[in-house]
């Protein structure tokens, strides 16, 4: 199978969950789309498929996200060509629907932000079905304790959410 065929297969399977992961992590769908595109562009420029492309992509995307988050000097950026249609075709939902959705997602986001970075990332990676091996490699953790750390992260998220709910 040629590299391009492999790339297409990986794009089809990995783009949705990588986007969803970064969207949930950042809360900025445009930024998530840019980061995922950039990770795939770098994979394309690499020219050969890594042994574990899903791990390679998530590692690159997380590094890009870290860089953006740490500099935070982002004031303007040139739009990538590929996502323009989706951005400008944003439908107009009803105001009530917008408010309900915003309140609901805001509560989840507040709970998520009460967790540490590692717990957030671990919880979101597992929610996208990443293996313990990939989670350990992406977050530089010991694979043998991923289950225990996940259980703690889930408990912390639930407690944070219910605490948010009660307030």
């Amino acid at each position, binding site marked *: 199978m040629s590299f391009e065929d492999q790339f297409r297969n990986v794009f089809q399977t990995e783009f949705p969950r990588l986007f969803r992961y970064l969207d949930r992590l950042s809360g900025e769908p445009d930024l998530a789309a840019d980061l995922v595109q950039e990770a795939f562009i770098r994979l394309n420029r690499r020219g050969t498929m890594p042994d574990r492309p899903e791990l390679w992509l998530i590692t690159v995307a997380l590094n890009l996200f870290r860089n953006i988050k740490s500099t935070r000097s982002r004031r303007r950026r040139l739009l990538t060509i590929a996502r323009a249609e989706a*951005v400008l075709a944003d439908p107009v939902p009803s105001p009530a629907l917008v408010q309900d959705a915003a309140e609901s997602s805001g509560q989840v986001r507040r709970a998520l932000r009460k967790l540490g970075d590692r717990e957030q990332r671990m919880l979101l990676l597992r929610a996208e079905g990443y293996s*313990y091996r990939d989670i350990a490699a992406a977050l530089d953790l010991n694979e043998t304790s991923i*289950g225990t750390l996940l259980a703690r992260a889930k408990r912390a998220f639930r407690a944070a959410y219910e605490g948010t709910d009660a307030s």
Partner: protein
Amino acid sequence: MHLNEEQIQRLLHGELPGIEEPLIRGHVGVCSECRSRLEEAEREEAWISQHLRRLDHGQPQVSVESVLAHRAWLPRWGRWAASIILTLAAAGAAYAVPGSPLPGLLDRIIQLAHRGASTEPHRQGGLDLRSGIAVEAGDRLTIAFQAGRGRDTVIVSLANRADVAVRARGGNIAFSSDPERLSIRNQGASARFEIAIPRAARSVEIRSGDRRIWSKQGARIVTKARRDSKGRYLLPLTVSRP
């Protein structure tokens, strides 16, 4: 002897090593306490999954072809963006200097390019070659269209996004910006601009020359422009070259 937390989670996620799995499943089959803990872990997993889905936005329609064809922009993006904007601004300044040969030169290039060419936006590898920029709305933002030579149109929509996106089809567009102002000049043929304004933006106005043609102050929109069936505002630009 009961299962520990690591084993419960691994059982839940299918992450147990092959030799351990039948033993652990066998234990769960006979131990009501461990079975109950596994069921609780399954309920918790489902609850978290359901709540995390509330964070999701629609997935962008990105085709693999566009990614295969597109060059990377994020590495050193800040320097790239700054250098492109500075280049565009410098080109704009050189163009506007009285007596500059650039307008005439551009005219000739445009005429040559149009001879035998389609009037459709230029395409390469199946992609529209369009220009665009995204800027943060901040507390206040003015989008100013400067004197152009074509009959441009602007379509404004409100979107659930964090920044203001301006995309142009056609024309030869120069963008320049400072923290509260984005200036746009079309130095080519007629163009169509699509502008997405964040619903949460506090104060955004669009000016055509010295006229304000659209503004948003909080949730209040002021414009004389008509709206299409999708709720977008259609603004004709009537700026003429002085």
